[in-house]
């Protein structure tokens, strides 16, 4: 394994002070489920000489409900998310995403903050947080800023955060009454398999089945994870027609090719994007 010095953050303040002092030469480890593999494969950048552990910082592990707002500490594990009754009630799409990750062992260590910061294209919580329009709270030294998750990604494994910036919290509004949400993914096996592609959807229809709100995001589809607003607009203000489900999938697959280019995997991915989208929309939307 690569060589480095190791420090254990005792508190949030301690972590931020140390990070500021190291000026980009420290790398944060939380659950370590991705970073440990990077260290093993000598993928740590040469500028980094210190690993700072935040897995013991209790101030970063919480799920709170404040009126309409749900606030989640970045150090909350996937297992804690998947077990939270607050979350199953307020945003089942995120509970489902967390529950689908890796294995019990991975979920007991991996954190929501790590999932976002590592920003693997297949990160399961990311599409769920995109449809929830989540906001991220980051701290650098003493200064704190908030950013929408949709504006946070730069590309695969790249986020718009400084090396000495720490993700503190993820927050979003609970689903509106009557809204349905869903997370689904295609994997090679049921457990311990990274998503080949994943999808998160939130939908709200009125009594007459008119679509009031629809949000769709797919992972492993575009270099920068995003919502597919063209496909969403196909349904807004209308009663869904069955043929629109596949049409929405085709809109998304065209957008994928436009943004990602035509790659060796495109012939395989296109039909999957279309089928995954159609199946998910069929499950959350009532058609005429």
């Amino acid at each position, binding site marked *: *394994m*690569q*060589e*480095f*010095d*190791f420090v*254990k953050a005792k508190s949030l303040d301690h972590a931020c002070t140390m990070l500021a002092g190291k000026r980009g030469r420290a790398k944060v*480890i939380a*659950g*370590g*489920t991705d970073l*440990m*593999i990077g*260290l*093993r494969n000598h993928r740590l950048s040469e500028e980094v000489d210190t*690993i700072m*552990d935040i*897995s*013991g910082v209790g101030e970063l592990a919480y799920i709170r409900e404040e009126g309409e707002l749900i606030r989640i500490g970045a150090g909350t594990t996937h*297992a804690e998310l998947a077990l939270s009754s607050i979350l199953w009630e307020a945003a089942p799409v995120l509970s489902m995403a967390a529950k689908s990750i*890796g*294995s*019990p*062992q*991975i979920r*007991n*260590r991996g954190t929501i903050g790590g999932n976002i910061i590592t920003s693997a294209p297949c990160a399961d919580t990311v599409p769920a947080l995109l449809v929830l329009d989540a906001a991220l709270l980051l701290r650098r030294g003493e200064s704190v800023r908030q950013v929408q998750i949709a504006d946070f990604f730069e590309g695969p494994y790249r986020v718009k955060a400084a090396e000495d910036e720490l993700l503190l919290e993820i927050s979003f509004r609970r689903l509106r009454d009557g809204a349905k949400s869903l997370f689904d993914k295609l994997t090679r096996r*049921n*457990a*311990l398999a990274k998503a080949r592609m994943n999808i998160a959807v939130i939908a709200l229809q009125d009594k007459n089945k008119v679509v009031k709100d629809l949000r769709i995001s797919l992972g492993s589809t575009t270099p920068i994870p995003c919502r597919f607003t063209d496909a969403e607009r196909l349904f807004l203000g209308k009663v869904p027609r069955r043929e629109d489900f596949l049409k929405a999938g085709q809109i998304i697959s065209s957008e994928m090719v436009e943004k990602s280019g035509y790659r060796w995997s495109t012939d395989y991915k296109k039909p999957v994007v279309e089928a995954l989208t159609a199946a998910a929309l069929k499950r959350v939307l009532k058609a005429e």
Partner: protein
Amino acid sequence: MKKIRVSLRVNGRIFTLETDPNRRLIDVLREDLNFTGVKEGCGIGECGACTVLMNGKPVNSCLVLIGQAEGSEVVTIEGLKGKNGELHPLQEAFIEAGAVQCGYCIPGMILSAEALLQNNPHPTEDLIKEAISGNLCRCTGYRQIIDAVKIASKKIARKE
């Protein structure tokens, strides 16, 4: 690379050691403390052979830096015992059900099952499958392992 001092409790005993920080929990458990029941399979958190209980929860000890285990309570297969030196109900059940073939996955498998039974002494088959979903077994096809966890659940109920 500066050495670090780490204190952790393994199978009820406190160990304090000085070590390089770029070692994993599994390395210290096997090489320094001689708990060789912890097995390394893939080394990337996919096979579950290195599963130990850390503060009561199953984790892959190949994905934990030794410094992260500071102050934690670790249980390896060596720490699982029945009363008065007898076999643990899970160990008895694995033997009865013929759930052990090559045996390499078994320490991790039993610890995942133990974590499940601690939380839920009467799990459904689906919960058993979910609990061992992070432990790969290439010999048994899992059937006998699932049966063994069910037998252990009954044994524990009888002993209560």
